[in-house]
């Protein structure tokens, strides 16, 4: 895909919707399209988080290995969402495994590249923060409800 097209793809994604062209060009410089087959890992828990991913198509399962139990999927992320936020937050290490459960197409954004650009141009950093905080807020709220285990029968 041409670089110009990738910029359009970025701006067409809900996460970057409305991003001004000059800032979209900065992001584009750190981005590339990537495909994952079902079962393929995007990243593993504990690894350096080198990319964050903007999902265009498919579905990614976020999971944790639990000793003595089968792997636990605690969330799925679909087209239109993002995954790999740990790449933007120190110490930049993945906190869980991410596995494609369907054929998945992402825009992979190189974390060090985008972090450096955010330092150089605080407007980009602020735009990114304004888009990330609502995602984190929604996920925190969902996690609270998940922790309540509201569907459990007494004694479960």
């Amino acid at each position, binding site marked *: 895909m041409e670089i110009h097209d990738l910029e359009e793809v970025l701006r067409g994604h809900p996460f970057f919707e409305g991003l001004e062209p000059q800032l979209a060009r900065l992001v584009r410089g750190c981005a590339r399209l990537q495909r994952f087959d079902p079962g393929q890992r995007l990243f593993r828990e504990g690894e350096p988080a080198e990319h964050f991913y903007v999902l265009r198509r498919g579905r990614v399962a976020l999971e944790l290995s639990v000793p003595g139990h089968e*792997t636990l999927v605690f969330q799925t992320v679909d087209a239109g969402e993002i995954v790999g936020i740990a790449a933007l937050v120190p110490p930049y290490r993945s906190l869980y495994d991410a596995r494609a459960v369907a054929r998945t197409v992402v825009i992979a954004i190189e974390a060090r590249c985008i972090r450096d650009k955010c330092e150089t141009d605080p407007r980009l950093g602020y735009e990114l923060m304004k888009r990330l905080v609502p995602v984190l807020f929604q996920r925190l709220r969902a996690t609270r*409800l998940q922790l309540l285990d509201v*569907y459990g029968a007494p004694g479960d």
Partner: protein
Amino acid sequence: MFMAPPATDIAPRDPLLPRIVRLRGKRREIRGVWSLEVVAEEGEPLDFAPGQFSMLTAFGVGEVPVSVSGRTRDGIGLVYTIRAVGAVTAALCGLRTGAPLGLRGPFGAGWPLEEAAAREVTVIAGGLGLAPLRPAIEAVLAAGGRLVLLYGARGPSEILYPADLARWQSARRAQVEVTVDHAGPEWHGHVGVVTRLVPRARFDPDTALALVCGPEIMMRFAVSSLREAGLSDARIFLSMERNMKCAVGFCGHCQFGPHFVCRDGPVLGYDRLAPLLRIEEL
């Protein structure tokens, strides 16, 4: 001159007096949850409106409120989906086919289907909350309405009515999304709480109605997501659960502010409920 009283076919049924009905069949839905098919002894059809509940008696044990979750295939009986959690529900789920049980009702206000049939309907159900919504879903689809169903369960093995979900998924005017709170790696569907599905739902917030049923905390989170999606309180309806005893507004056990949930509910508009849900321990 002696005047004969006007002829009546049958005395009005005393709403406090259970009628004897029979368990015609039962089916295990998920772990600890059974659907009971109940028919009248006299064979006359039992009627209800989607969203209403009945009081079911396990003789010698007690009586509990249970939402009607559908009609029997032949249309003459009613289906109740029950989780065996206490003495009465365990006794009801343990009944053998052919056993008698007591039935009062159906009672209460159901889903606003007259309004819903003309619009698109977004249904958010959690866990067993799908049971009182199943007849409403069938009614919306039968009336040619557009349906968005967002359903959340604890895990893949606790998804209620999988055959119905598959049938609704294939309906032309339906968007059905199912999620579970946790799963193993073999599950390829959504994982996460049901409210995370709201942004995926395709509905017009200016015309859609939302019908919500599940644990009360889940409903509060669902309402919050629906409001963020642009729905006004007047278009959101919840099925409330309180301690229904008499079921006809006499005893006050189910009082919820100015409402008796048994008589004014169980389905109530969120515009009426919002101020009450903010009161602690009400």
